[in-house]
């Protein structure tokens, strides 16, 4: 509102024509020719620059998928690496179009910050890592343990909640940055390391003897991570939402970037609708009808995106777990395209 007011005020002063002060996001994006995507400043598997300086990761690939749907070109996206502090400000000020930065979907963020979560790209949860030689098999045996964690995160609060709920005592050893936390744990300053389970997989790589440590089975918090857009543009919200659903549906239907051209000839009506040879679903969002085809061609389906960035063949080696499709025991569920 402030922005609108100041725009109008200045426009009045300078006699500018304030045409379309709030043009539709999709039109804005199309006219500037790229998507501005907020990612994290570095999180293994989610957004991190590779040796050539290209951003890679699950969060990054999702933005590329949106770019592919709009422009048929996954490179038409620019990344703004954001810290946890300023990610929402950047979105609210219009500095970025999508925030795809391992952001947990919570009621506060969804309702009071003027934001919309479009879906869940990764179901995460807080877990514990401990040395094997401590002979602990469950988080419920951790009473009296010293726990290394990062300050000022929800991790610390989840930890307190969990131990209090189970009547256990613990000692927190907190550090400002993740790197310090790992070094402290590796040096034996605490018994347990806690953070999101995807984070644990990344931290494990930095340990002196990764095989001496296990991740306990308990998940003590729900951390559904997903892309975020700002309030006020439902069309843009729809597009970002359905890009993920298209990728999930593609995996479910067995359509991948490798077999795309065979599948395009398939008689299966669901595949036809996904790839745009039947129906006018793309146009309904202001895109072309082959929007689904474009996403799969350039970025791939959800499984491809997952395996490329965090899957078993990457150093992170994260099993699908809760991120498997709904019909394979997981939670990922693509709404039907029809």
């Amino acid at each position, binding site marked *: 509102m*402030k*922005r609108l007011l*100041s*725009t109008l005020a*200045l*426009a009045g002063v*300078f*006699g*500018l024509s304030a045409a379309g*002060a709030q043009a539709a996001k999709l039109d804005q994006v199309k006219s500037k020719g790229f998507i501005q995507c907020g990612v994290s*400043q*570095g*999180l*293994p*598997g989610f957004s*991190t*620059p*590779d*040796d*050539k*300086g290209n951003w890679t990761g699950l969060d990054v690939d999702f933005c590329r998928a949106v770019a592919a749907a709009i422009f048929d070109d996954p490179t038409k996206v*620019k990344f*703004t*690496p*954001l*810290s946890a*502090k*300023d990610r929402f*400000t*950047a979105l609210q*000020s*219009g*500095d970025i179009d999508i925030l795809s930065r391992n952001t947990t979907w919570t009621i506060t963020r969804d309702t009071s910050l003027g934001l919309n979560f479009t879906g869940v790209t990764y179901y995460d949860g807080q877990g514990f890592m401990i040395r094997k030689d401590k002979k602990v098999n469950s988080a419920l045996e951790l009473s009296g343990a010293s726990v290394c964690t990062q300050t000022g995160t929800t991790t610390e609060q989840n930890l307190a909640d969990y131990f209090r709920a189970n009547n256990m005592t613990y000692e927190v050893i907190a550090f400002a940055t993740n*790197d310090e936390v790992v*070094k402290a744990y*590796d040096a034996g300053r605490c018994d347990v390391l806690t953070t999101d389970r995807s984070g644990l997989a*990344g931290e494990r*790589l*930095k*340990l*002196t*003897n990764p095989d001496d440590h296990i991740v306990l089975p308990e998940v003590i918090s729900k951390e559904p991570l997903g892309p975020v857009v700002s309030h006020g543009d439902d069309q843009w919200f729809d597009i970002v939402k359905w890009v993920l659903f298209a990728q999930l549906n593609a995996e479910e239907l067995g359509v991948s970037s490798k077999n795309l051209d065979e599948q395009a000839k398939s008689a299966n009506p669901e595949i036809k609708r996904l790839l745009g040879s039947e129906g006018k679903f793309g146009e309904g969002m202001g895109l072309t009808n082959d929007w689904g085809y474009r996403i799969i061609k350039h970025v791939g389906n959800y499984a491809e995106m997952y395996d490329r960035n965090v899957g078993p063949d*990457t*150093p*992170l080696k994260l099993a699908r777990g809760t991120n498997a499709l709904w019909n394979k025991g997981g939670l990922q569920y693509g709404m039907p395209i029809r």
Partner: protein
Amino acid sequence: MTFAIDDHTFVRQELHTPLPPPRRNIGVLGWMRENLFSSILNTLLTLFGLLLVVLILPPLVRFLILDAVWTGDNREACLAPGTGACWPFVKAKFGQFIYGFYPIDQRWRVNIVFALGAALLVPLLIPSIGQKRLNALLFFGAYPIVAFILLTGGNIDASAFLFQHFGLFSGLAGASVAGVKLAFWLDFLLTAGLVTGLGAVIGAALGDARGVARIVASVFLGLGIITLLWDIDFGLQPVETRQWGGLLVTLVIGVTGIVTSLPLGILLALGRRSKMPIVRLLCIIFIEFWRGVPLITVLFFATYMLPLFLPAGANPDGLLRALVGVALFTAAYMAEVVRGGLQAIPKGQYEGAMAMGLTWSQMMRLIILPQALTLVIPGIVNSFISLFKDTTLVLIVSIFDFLGQLRAAFTDPNWASPVTLYTGFAFAGIVYFIFCFGMSRYSMFVERRLNTSHRH
């Protein structure tokens, strides 16, 4: 009566050659006695120092050189237990540390900027090389313009100056030559002409129509030349500042901050000591405001809050916003350093200068400032060094300087290993040390040359 001179009296003609000092006072032994073991306290301190060296140096050498890994393609190379520094990590990320996300095929432009900067700066710093005036003009005048064109690609697409906002020249909207829009320049010339005329009118009221008009016209001429150069399409691929990073950003911010903060600081310091109440008040407000807020707040405000207040179209570049913030922030500190120097100049110098009939600006330029600035060289260099290291704070506004690029590289799972962190920080430490130590040594050299310590 005659005096017989005893010819045999011995009078020595030359001085006796002094005996050599006792052996324990010369050579290595003597030096050590004098400098290392002259008292019990010094002996203890020496032993303590030796202990530190023995404790620190061997592990450091072992980590950085002897046990270090020198070749490899990914983290596997650095995983063996007991390995030292993982240099292939630095090698793989070296381009990013220097250039950030600058497109790889365009990095030659950054190299030219670096080389040009060094070629102009080095002769400027060595007193025995002549042509200082020309050299300074090139470094402070031409170099920033050329560097801007090379780094960003130029072709700033200047489209609307003043009257175009009111719909003038809209018929020429599409006309352009080599990326230069005709309408903009017609507008520019018209505005320049009008403002110069206005200046002449005001000047006439003040009694010097021609002088004022000339000043106004030359300001427009300077602005016009710079804008024109930046506006021409040289065919360079545009590279947004968002893609800059690494040492490039550190140097751009550091050098810009250093170069702009000193003159600004001098002006502010003079303003604060001025006898004109409004000027003094404004300078005090400015200095105290910028000294009163942390740099992080300044950067955050400039980056995320400013767009909320500006109209939708007017969105200055992110790096530019950070640059302005850093420059103003440092200028406030610089002003106080310079003011310290000004206050140290005895009153007699001012009175002497005034007695000779010098104007205020002559007095400042010829008598006061040269003395005041040489007095505060340590303070100025202190500010420069701290500015250079503070540039790292731009990471919080999503600009990846050298250290930011390093931290991003730590998160690459392909290079995650127990030693990656130490290697990266060791490398960063070495790079920062080279720059800061260089600055401090040079300032000591300048001080010795100007002999500011009033030793006799």
